[in-house]
Protein backbone atom coordinates (compact mmCIF):
# COMPACT_ATOMS: atom_id res chain seq x y z
CA UNK A 1 0.00 0.00 0.00
CA UNK A 2 1.35 3.39 -0.97
CA UNK A 3 -0.15 4.91 2.17
CA UNK A 4 2.06 2.72 4.38
CA UNK A 5 5.08 3.54 2.28
CA UNK A 6 4.40 7.28 2.55
CA UNK A 7 3.80 6.97 6.30
CA UNK A 8 7.21 5.32 6.64
CA UNK A 9 8.79 8.02 4.48
CA UNK A 10 7.31 10.74 6.70
CA UNK A 11 8.51 9.05 9.87
CA UNK A 12 12.02 8.41 8.52
CA UNK A 13 12.42 11.86 7.02
CA UNK A 14 11.22 13.71 10.09
CA UNK A 15 12.62 11.42 12.76
CA UNK A 16 9.23 11.04 14.39
CA UNK A 17 9.51 7.69 16.17
CA UNK A 18 5.89 6.76 15.89
CA UNK A 19 4.53 3.55 14.46
CA UNK A 20 3.51 4.01 10.77
CA UNK A 21 0.21 2.25 11.43
CA UNK A 22 -0.59 4.74 14.20
CA UNK A 23 -0.93 7.63 11.74
CA UNK A 24 -4.61 8.16 11.06
CA UNK A 25 -4.87 8.44 7.24
CA UNK A 26 -7.56 11.11 7.56
CA UNK A 27 -6.01 13.18 10.38
CA UNK A 28 -4.27 16.45 9.56
CA UNK A 29 -0.49 16.10 9.34
CA UNK A 30 0.09 19.68 10.44
CA UNK A 31 -0.61 21.47 13.68
CA UNK A 32 -3.21 19.32 15.43
CA UNK A 33 -2.39 15.90 13.98
CA UNK A 34 1.29 15.09 13.84
CA UNK A 35 2.20 18.67 14.68
CA UNK A 36 4.37 19.27 11.63
CA UNK A 37 5.46 22.72 10.48
CA UNK A 38 6.41 24.22 7.12
CA UNK A 39 10.06 23.23 7.57
CA UNK A 40 8.86 19.64 7.82
CA UNK A 41 6.87 20.17 4.64
CA UNK A 42 10.04 21.25 2.84
CA UNK A 43 11.98 18.28 4.20
CA UNK A 44 9.19 15.99 3.03
CA UNK A 45 9.09 17.67 -0.37
CA UNK A 46 12.76 16.80 -0.86
CA UNK A 47 12.32 13.17 0.19
CA UNK A 48 9.30 12.85 -2.08
CA UNK A 49 11.11 14.24 -5.09
CA UNK A 50 14.04 11.87 -4.50
CA UNK A 51 11.82 8.83 -4.08
CA UNK A 52 8.99 9.48 -6.50
CA UNK A 53 10.72 11.64 -9.08
CA UNK A 54 8.52 14.71 -9.13
CA UNK A 55 8.57 18.12 -7.52
CA UNK A 56 5.72 19.07 -5.24
CA UNK A 57 3.67 21.99 -6.43
CA UNK A 58 1.04 23.48 -4.24
CA UNK A 59 -1.28 24.60 -7.06
CA UNK A 60 -2.46 28.03 -6.03
CA UNK A 61 -3.05 28.40 -2.34
CA UNK A 62 -3.48 24.74 -1.58
CA UNK A 63 -0.25 24.06 0.31
CA UNK A 64 -2.42 22.86 3.10
CA UNK A 65 -4.56 20.57 0.93
CA UNK A 66 -1.77 18.27 -0.23
CA UNK A 67 -0.61 17.82 3.34
CA UNK A 68 -4.11 17.80 4.76
CA UNK A 69 -3.76 14.13 5.64
CA UNK A 70 -1.71 11.03 4.92
CA UNK A 71 -4.47 9.93 2.59
CA UNK A 72 -4.48 13.15 0.53
CA UNK A 73 -0.69 13.22 0.32
CA UNK A 74 -0.62 9.59 -0.86
CA UNK A 75 -3.26 10.28 -3.52
CA UNK A 76 -1.28 13.28 -4.71
CA UNK A 77 1.90 11.20 -4.94
CA UNK A 78 0.02 8.44 -6.80
CA UNK A 79 -1.16 10.89 -9.45
CA UNK A 80 2.19 12.66 -9.93
CA UNK A 81 4.85 9.99 -9.48
CA UNK A 82 7.24 9.22 -12.31
CA UNK A 83 9.07 6.33 -10.66
Amino acid at each position, binding site marked *: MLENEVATLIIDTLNLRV*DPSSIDPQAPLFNEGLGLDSIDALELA*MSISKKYGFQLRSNDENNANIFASLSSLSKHIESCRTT
Partner: protein
Amino acid sequence: MDARTLAGQLPDRSCLINLCENRYRFLVGLIAGILKGQKIVLPPGRANEDLKRLQQRYESIYCLTDTDTRQADIEIHRYVDPVCSDPLEQAIPEVPSAKPLFELFTSGSTGKATPHQKSWGTLWEGARLTGERLGLDNLTQAAVLATVPPQHMFGLEASILLPLRWGLSVSSEQPLFAADIAASLEKLPTPRILVTTPFHLRNCVEEGIKLPQTAFILSATSTLSPTLAAQAEKLFDTQALEIYGSTETGAIATRRPALESDWSLLPGITLNQESKAWRVTAAHLRKSILLSDRLKKTSEHQFILLGRDSDMVKIAGKRASLEDLNLRLQSLDGVEDGIFFLPDQRSASVPRLTAFVVSNSLDEQEITQALREQLDPAFLPRPLFKVDRLPRNATGKIPQSALVTLFKQCGAKQ
Protein backbone atom coordinates in the same frame (compact mmCIF):
# COMPACT_ATOMS: atom_id res chain seq x y z
CA MET B 1 -8.64 52.78 -1.88
CA ASP B 2 -9.42 49.34 -0.60
CA ALA B 3 -8.10 50.27 2.84
CA ARG B 4 -10.61 53.10 3.33
CA THR B 5 -13.45 50.86 2.19
CA LEU B 6 -12.34 48.14 4.58
CA ALA B 7 -11.83 50.65 7.42
CA GLY B 8 -15.48 51.56 7.05
CA GLN B 9 -16.49 47.92 7.61
CA LEU B 10 -14.20 47.03 10.52
CA PRO B 11 -15.74 46.69 13.97
CA ASP B 12 -15.18 49.43 16.57
CA ARG B 13 -12.50 47.82 18.69
CA SER B 14 -9.14 49.04 19.92
CA CYS B 15 -6.96 46.15 18.65
CA LEU B 16 -6.83 44.24 15.39
CA ILE B 17 -5.11 40.86 15.06
CA ASN B 18 -4.13 40.72 11.41
CA LEU B 19 -4.05 37.07 10.33
CA CYS B 20 -4.51 37.64 6.58
CA GLU B 21 -2.36 35.20 4.59
CA ASN B 22 -2.64 36.92 1.24
CA ARG B 23 -0.01 39.66 1.44
CA TYR B 24 -2.09 42.28 -0.35
CA ARG B 25 -5.02 41.69 2.01
CA PHE B 26 -2.65 41.79 4.97
CA LEU B 27 -1.40 45.18 3.80
CA VAL B 28 -4.90 46.53 3.22
CA GLY B 29 -5.97 45.23 6.63
CA LEU B 30 -2.97 46.87 8.27
CA ILE B 31 -3.66 50.27 6.70
CA ALA B 32 -7.39 50.01 7.38
CA GLY B 33 -6.64 49.30 11.04
CA ILE B 34 -4.31 52.29 11.23
CA LEU B 35 -6.94 54.52 9.59
CA LYS B 36 -9.40 53.41 12.20
CA GLY B 37 -6.93 54.15 15.00
CA GLN B 38 -6.61 50.50 16.00
CA LYS B 39 -3.47 48.84 17.30
CA ILE B 40 -2.15 46.16 14.93
CA VAL B 41 -1.34 42.97 16.82
CA LEU B 42 0.72 40.31 15.05
CA PRO B 43 0.47 37.14 17.12
CA PRO B 44 3.28 34.65 17.75
CA GLY B 45 1.19 31.84 16.26
CA ARG B 46 -2.23 30.99 14.94
CA ALA B 47 -3.06 28.45 17.60
CA ASN B 48 -6.24 29.04 19.56
CA GLU B 49 -4.08 29.27 22.69
CA ASP B 50 -2.18 32.25 21.26
CA LEU B 51 -5.40 34.06 20.41
CA LYS B 52 -6.87 33.30 23.81
CA ARG B 53 -3.87 34.84 25.52
CA LEU B 54 -4.26 37.97 23.45
CA GLN B 55 -7.88 38.17 24.41
CA GLN B 56 -6.91 38.06 28.05
CA ARG B 57 -4.43 40.86 27.43
CA TYR B 58 -6.82 43.14 25.57
CA GLU B 59 -10.53 43.37 26.16
CA SER B 60 -11.41 45.06 22.92
CA ILE B 61 -9.79 42.84 20.30
CA TYR B 62 -10.80 40.98 17.14
CA CYS B 63 -9.23 38.98 14.33
CA LEU B 64 -9.09 39.98 10.68
CA THR B 65 -8.67 36.87 8.52
CA ASP B 66 -8.99 35.92 4.87
CA THR B 67 -8.72 32.15 5.23
CA ASP B 68 -9.30 30.94 8.73
CA THR B 69 -12.67 29.29 9.05
CA ARG B 70 -11.95 27.64 12.36
CA GLN B 71 -14.36 28.21 15.19
CA ALA B 72 -12.66 30.45 17.68
CA ASP B 73 -13.79 32.11 20.87
CA ILE B 74 -12.57 35.42 19.54
CA GLU B 75 -14.51 37.86 17.37
CA ILE B 76 -13.68 37.29 13.70
CA HIS B 77 -13.98 39.76 10.87
CA ARG B 78 -13.82 37.97 7.52
CA TYR B 79 -11.91 39.87 4.87
CA VAL B 80 -14.11 40.31 1.80
CA ASP B 81 -12.31 41.89 -1.15
CA PRO B 82 -13.62 45.47 -1.22
CA VAL B 83 -15.03 46.94 -4.41
CA CYS B 84 -12.98 50.00 -5.11
CA SER B 85 -14.85 52.84 -6.81
CA ASP B 86 -12.20 55.45 -7.46
CA PRO B 87 -8.67 54.36 -6.63
CA LEU B 88 -7.09 57.77 -7.25
CA GLU B 89 -9.49 59.92 -5.31
CA GLN B 90 -7.97 59.68 -1.85
CA ALA B 91 -4.80 61.15 -0.44
CA ILE B 92 -2.22 58.99 1.32
CA PRO B 93 -3.10 58.96 5.03
CA GLU B 94 -0.88 60.60 7.62
CA VAL B 95 0.27 58.16 10.26
CA PRO B 96 1.31 59.32 13.74
CA SER B 97 4.98 58.39 13.92
CA ALA B 98 5.69 58.01 17.64
CA LYS B 99 2.57 56.15 18.82
CA PRO B 100 3.07 52.41 19.48
CA LEU B 101 0.95 51.17 16.59
CA PHE B 102 2.21 47.62 16.28
CA GLU B 103 2.68 44.76 18.67
CA LEU B 104 4.87 41.78 17.78
CA PHE B 105 6.04 38.90 19.93
CA THR B 106 9.14 36.93 20.87
CA SER B 107 9.33 33.81 22.93
CA GLY B 108 11.02 35.16 26.03
CA SER B 109 13.06 33.21 28.51
CA THR B 110 10.00 32.55 30.63
CA GLY B 111 8.43 30.77 27.66
CA LYS B 112 5.55 33.20 27.58
CA ALA B 113 5.49 35.23 24.41
CA THR B 114 6.77 38.70 25.21
CA PRO B 115 5.08 41.61 23.43
CA HIS B 116 7.12 44.34 21.77
CA GLN B 117 5.66 47.68 20.76
CA LYS B 118 6.70 49.32 17.52
CA SER B 119 5.89 52.79 16.32
CA TRP B 120 5.38 53.65 12.70
CA GLY B 121 8.41 55.97 12.95
CA THR B 122 10.67 53.12 14.09
CA LEU B 123 9.60 50.81 11.29
CA TRP B 124 9.68 53.55 8.66
CA GLU B 125 13.20 54.68 9.58
CA GLY B 126 14.37 51.05 9.81
CA ALA B 127 13.06 50.51 6.27
CA ARG B 128 14.97 53.59 5.09
CA LEU B 129 18.27 52.37 6.60
CA THR B 130 17.88 48.81 5.30
CA GLY B 131 16.73 49.96 1.86
CA GLU B 132 19.69 52.30 1.44
CA ARG B 133 22.08 49.49 2.33
CA LEU B 134 20.40 47.19 -0.20
CA GLY B 135 20.55 49.83 -2.93
CA LEU B 136 16.79 50.14 -3.27
CA ASP B 137 17.17 53.77 -4.38
CA ASN B 138 18.22 52.27 -7.73
CA LEU B 139 15.56 49.56 -7.69
CA THR B 140 12.31 51.46 -7.11
CA GLN B 141 10.65 49.55 -9.97
CA ALA B 142 11.39 46.23 -8.28
CA ALA B 143 8.80 43.62 -7.33
CA VAL B 144 9.13 41.61 -4.11
CA LEU B 145 8.16 37.98 -3.57
CA ALA B 146 8.31 36.66 0.01
CA THR B 147 8.19 33.08 1.24
CA VAL B 148 7.80 34.23 4.85
CA PRO B 149 4.62 35.42 6.56
CA PRO B 150 4.20 39.17 7.15
CA GLN B 151 3.20 38.58 10.78
CA HIS B 152 6.80 38.20 11.95
CA MET B 153 9.40 40.95 12.15
CA PHE B 154 11.52 39.90 9.17
CA GLY B 155 8.48 39.40 6.94
CA LEU B 156 6.91 42.65 8.09
CA GLU B 157 10.07 44.65 7.48
CA ALA B 158 11.16 43.03 4.22
CA SER B 159 7.84 42.37 2.49
CA ILE B 160 5.64 45.22 3.78
CA LEU B 161 7.70 48.14 5.13
CA LEU B 162 10.54 48.07 2.56
CA PRO B 163 8.07 48.07 -0.36
CA LEU B 164 5.95 50.85 1.24
CA ARG B 165 8.98 53.00 2.01
CA TRP B 166 10.63 52.54 -1.41
CA GLY B 167 7.57 52.26 -3.61
CA LEU B 168 8.21 48.64 -4.66
CA SER B 169 5.45 46.29 -5.72
CA VAL B 170 4.75 43.09 -3.79
CA SER B 171 3.38 39.73 -4.82
CA SER B 172 0.36 38.67 -2.79
CA GLU B 173 1.60 35.05 -2.85
CA GLN B 174 3.63 33.16 -0.29
CA PRO B 175 5.00 30.08 -2.05
CA LEU B 176 6.50 27.23 -0.06
CA PHE B 177 7.93 24.67 -2.48
CA ALA B 178 10.79 25.32 -4.88
CA ALA B 179 8.66 24.87 -8.01
CA ASP B 180 6.06 27.30 -6.62
CA ILE B 181 8.72 29.90 -5.78
CA ALA B 182 9.99 29.72 -9.37
CA ALA B 183 6.46 30.04 -10.78
CA SER B 184 5.55 32.97 -8.51
CA LEU B 185 8.78 34.79 -9.44
CA GLU B 186 8.12 34.18 -13.13
CA LYS B 187 4.85 36.10 -12.86
CA LEU B 188 6.60 39.24 -11.58
CA PRO B 189 8.16 41.94 -13.73
CA THR B 190 11.94 42.49 -13.41
CA PRO B 191 13.85 43.50 -11.41
CA ARG B 192 12.73 40.97 -8.81
CA ILE B 193 13.68 40.57 -5.16
CA LEU B 194 13.18 37.27 -3.34
CA VAL B 195 12.68 37.52 0.43
CA THR B 196 13.21 34.09 1.93
CA THR B 197 14.97 31.85 4.46
CA PRO B 198 17.84 29.34 4.28
CA PHE B 199 15.25 26.51 4.46
CA HIS B 200 13.44 27.60 1.30
CA LEU B 201 16.70 28.41 -0.43
CA ARG B 202 18.20 25.03 0.33
CA ASN B 203 15.06 23.39 -1.04
CA CYS B 204 15.48 25.35 -4.32
CA VAL B 205 19.16 24.40 -4.57
CA GLU B 206 18.62 20.70 -3.79
CA GLU B 207 15.66 20.33 -6.13
CA GLY B 208 17.91 21.71 -8.89
CA ILE B 209 15.23 24.18 -9.85
CA LYS B 210 16.07 27.15 -12.07
CA LEU B 211 14.84 30.35 -10.46
CA PRO B 212 14.04 33.31 -12.71
CA GLN B 213 16.49 36.25 -12.65
CA THR B 214 16.49 38.25 -9.39
CA ALA B 215 18.32 41.45 -8.46
CA PHE B 216 19.10 39.82 -5.13
CA ILE B 217 17.87 37.29 -2.62
CA LEU B 218 17.34 38.49 0.94
CA SER B 219 17.53 35.86 3.68
CA ALA B 220 17.00 35.89 7.44
CA THR B 221 15.56 33.87 10.39
CA SER B 222 18.55 31.55 10.64
CA THR B 223 22.15 31.59 9.48
CA LEU B 224 22.70 31.35 5.76
CA SER B 225 25.82 29.21 5.41
CA PRO B 226 28.55 30.47 3.06
CA THR B 227 28.28 27.20 1.09
CA LEU B 228 24.55 27.48 0.49
CA ALA B 229 24.86 31.20 -0.25
CA ALA B 230 27.59 30.54 -2.85
CA GLN B 231 25.58 27.71 -4.43
CA ALA B 232 22.50 29.91 -4.66
CA GLU B 233 24.44 32.81 -6.13
CA LYS B 234 25.97 30.57 -8.80
CA LEU B 235 22.83 28.61 -9.68
CA PHE B 236 20.48 31.57 -9.74
CA ASP B 237 23.00 34.14 -11.03
CA THR B 238 22.24 36.61 -8.26
CA GLN B 239 23.51 37.98 -4.95
CA ALA B 240 22.44 36.29 -1.73
CA LEU B 241 22.27 38.89 1.05
CA GLU B 242 21.54 38.25 4.67
CA ILE B 243 19.91 40.38 7.37
CA TYR B 244 20.81 40.22 11.04
CA GLY B 245 18.24 41.46 13.48
CA SER B 246 15.59 40.50 16.01
CA THR B 247 12.01 41.29 16.81
CA GLU B 248 13.21 43.76 19.44
CA THR B 249 15.64 45.65 17.20
CA GLY B 250 14.47 45.01 13.64
CA ALA B 251 17.24 44.68 11.04
CA ILE B 252 20.55 46.05 12.32
CA ALA B 253 23.22 44.59 10.02
CA THR B 254 23.71 42.90 6.65
CA ARG B 255 26.31 40.73 4.94
CA ARG B 256 26.88 38.71 1.79
CA PRO B 257 27.79 35.27 3.20
CA ALA B 258 29.32 33.94 -0.02
CA LEU B 259 32.02 36.62 0.22
CA GLU B 260 32.23 37.76 3.84
CA SER B 261 31.76 36.46 7.36
CA ASP B 262 31.60 39.91 8.97
CA TRP B 263 28.30 41.70 9.46
CA SER B 264 28.18 45.41 8.62
CA LEU B 265 26.01 47.51 10.89
CA LEU B 266 23.41 49.71 9.24
CA PRO B 267 24.36 53.41 9.43
CA GLY B 268 23.46 55.05 12.73
CA ILE B 269 23.37 51.79 14.69
CA THR B 270 25.92 51.34 17.45
CA LEU B 271 26.90 48.34 19.54
CA ASN B 272 28.29 48.75 23.05
CA GLN B 273 29.54 46.01 25.31
CA GLU B 274 27.99 45.62 28.74
CA SER B 275 29.86 42.98 30.71
CA LYS B 276 29.30 39.96 28.45
CA ALA B 277 26.34 41.19 26.43
CA TRP B 278 26.00 43.78 23.68
CA ARG B 279 23.61 46.69 23.66
CA VAL B 280 22.14 48.11 20.45
CA THR B 281 21.46 51.83 20.26
CA ALA B 282 19.94 53.74 17.35
CA ALA B 283 18.06 57.00 16.94
CA HIS B 284 14.96 55.25 15.56
CA LEU B 285 14.73 52.70 18.40
CA ARG B 286 12.64 53.90 21.33
CA LYS B 287 15.17 52.52 23.79
CA SER B 288 18.44 50.62 23.60
CA ILE B 289 18.21 46.84 23.47
CA LEU B 290 20.37 44.06 24.89
CA LEU B 291 21.13 41.26 22.38
CA SER B 292 20.91 37.60 23.32
CA ASP B 293 23.66 36.70 20.85
CA ARG B 294 27.34 36.65 21.68
CA LEU B 295 29.44 38.54 19.17
CA LYS B 296 32.84 40.08 18.57
CA LYS B 297 33.44 43.45 17.02
CA THR B 298 35.98 43.33 14.20
CA SER B 299 35.93 47.05 13.47
CA GLU B 300 33.89 50.09 14.46
CA HIS B 301 30.99 49.07 12.20
CA GLN B 302 31.52 45.32 11.78
CA PHE B 303 31.17 42.22 13.90
CA ILE B 304 31.08 38.44 13.75
CA LEU B 305 28.54 36.28 15.55
CA LEU B 306 29.92 33.80 18.08
CA GLY B 307 26.71 32.09 19.15
CA ARG B 308 23.75 32.41 21.41
CA ASP B 309 23.39 32.36 25.14
CA SER B 310 23.71 28.68 25.93
CA ASP B 311 20.17 28.53 27.30
CA MET B 312 18.58 29.87 24.13
CA VAL B 313 17.98 27.65 21.13
CA LYS B 314 16.77 28.73 17.72
CA ILE B 315 14.90 26.12 15.74
CA ALA B 316 13.42 26.83 12.33
CA GLY B 317 13.71 30.54 12.99
CA LYS B 318 11.99 30.44 16.38
CA ARG B 319 13.63 31.05 19.72
CA ALA B 320 13.04 29.26 22.98
CA SER B 321 14.72 28.83 26.31
CA LEU B 322 15.91 25.29 27.02
CA GLU B 323 15.22 25.79 30.69
CA ASP B 324 11.62 26.67 29.94
CA LEU B 325 11.20 23.72 27.57
CA ASN B 326 12.59 21.42 30.27
CA LEU B 327 10.20 22.83 32.84
CA ARG B 328 7.23 22.23 30.59
CA LEU B 329 8.36 18.68 29.85
CA GLN B 330 8.93 17.93 33.54
CA SER B 331 5.53 19.37 34.48
CA LEU B 332 3.57 16.98 32.27
CA ASP B 333 1.32 14.53 34.11
CA GLY B 334 2.98 11.11 34.11
CA VAL B 335 6.46 12.41 33.37
CA GLU B 336 8.93 11.73 36.18
CA ASP B 337 11.94 13.45 34.67
CA GLY B 338 12.99 14.79 31.33
CA ILE B 339 15.39 17.02 29.49
CA PHE B 340 15.68 18.55 26.04
CA PHE B 341 18.91 18.25 24.12
CA LEU B 342 20.14 19.90 20.95
CA PRO B 343 22.44 17.38 19.27
CA ASP B 344 25.36 18.54 17.19
CA GLN B 345 23.82 17.81 13.80
CA ARG B 346 26.26 19.20 11.32
CA SER B 347 24.97 16.93 8.61
CA ALA B 348 21.31 17.58 9.30
CA SER B 349 19.75 20.37 7.32
CA VAL B 350 17.61 21.90 10.04
CA PRO B 351 18.66 21.40 13.65
CA ARG B 352 15.91 19.77 15.70
CA LEU B 353 15.67 19.16 19.40
CA THR B 354 15.59 15.75 20.91
CA ALA B 355 14.37 14.85 24.40
CA PHE B 356 15.04 12.16 26.98
CA VAL B 357 12.12 11.31 29.19
CA VAL B 358 11.57 9.08 32.21
CA SER B 359 8.00 7.89 32.61
CA ASN B 360 6.36 4.78 34.03
CA SER B 361 2.88 5.39 32.71
CA LEU B 362 3.28 7.04 29.29
CA ASP B 363 4.82 5.83 26.05
CA GLU B 364 6.74 8.00 23.58
CA GLN B 365 3.69 8.84 21.52
CA GLU B 366 1.62 9.87 24.53
CA ILE B 367 4.38 12.14 25.80
CA THR B 368 4.79 13.70 22.36
CA GLN B 369 1.04 14.23 22.16
CA ALA B 370 1.06 16.01 25.52
CA LEU B 371 3.95 18.20 24.40
CA ARG B 372 2.12 19.10 21.20
CA GLU B 373 -0.50 20.88 23.25
CA GLN B 374 2.19 22.91 25.00
CA LEU B 375 4.76 23.77 22.37
CA ASP B 376 5.15 25.24 18.95
CA PRO B 377 5.68 22.33 16.51
CA ALA B 378 9.19 23.62 15.81
CA PHE B 379 10.29 22.57 19.30
CA LEU B 380 8.75 19.10 19.37
CA PRO B 381 11.52 16.54 19.93
CA ARG B 382 12.45 14.65 16.80
CA PRO B 383 12.90 12.08 18.15
CA LEU B 384 11.88 11.68 21.78
CA PHE B 385 13.63 8.88 23.66
CA LYS B 386 12.25 7.14 26.72
CA VAL B 387 15.00 6.23 29.17
CA ASP B 388 15.12 4.51 32.57
CA ARG B 389 16.78 7.49 34.21
CA LEU B 390 18.63 10.66 33.33
CA PRO B 391 22.41 10.81 33.90
CA ARG B 392 22.15 13.30 36.77
CA ASN B 393 25.33 13.75 38.82
CA ALA B 394 25.59 14.06 42.60
CA THR B 395 24.37 17.65 42.55
CA GLY B 396 21.39 16.77 40.39
CA LYS B 397 22.82 18.41 37.31
CA ILE B 398 23.20 16.72 33.96
CA PRO B 399 26.56 17.31 32.29
CA GLN B 400 26.36 18.08 28.58
CA SER B 401 28.86 15.30 27.89
CA ALA B 402 26.54 12.75 29.49
CA LEU B 403 23.73 13.85 27.18
CA VAL B 404 25.99 13.46 24.17
CA THR B 405 26.76 9.88 25.27
CA LEU B 406 23.11 9.14 25.98
CA PHE B 407 22.15 10.47 22.56
CA LYS B 408 24.67 8.14 20.91
CA GLN B 409 23.40 5.13 22.89
CA CYS B 410 19.75 5.84 22.09
CA GLY B 411 20.51 6.47 18.44
CA ALA B 412 22.38 3.16 18.18
CA LYS B 413 19.43 1.22 19.63
CA GLN B 414 17.02 2.52 17.01
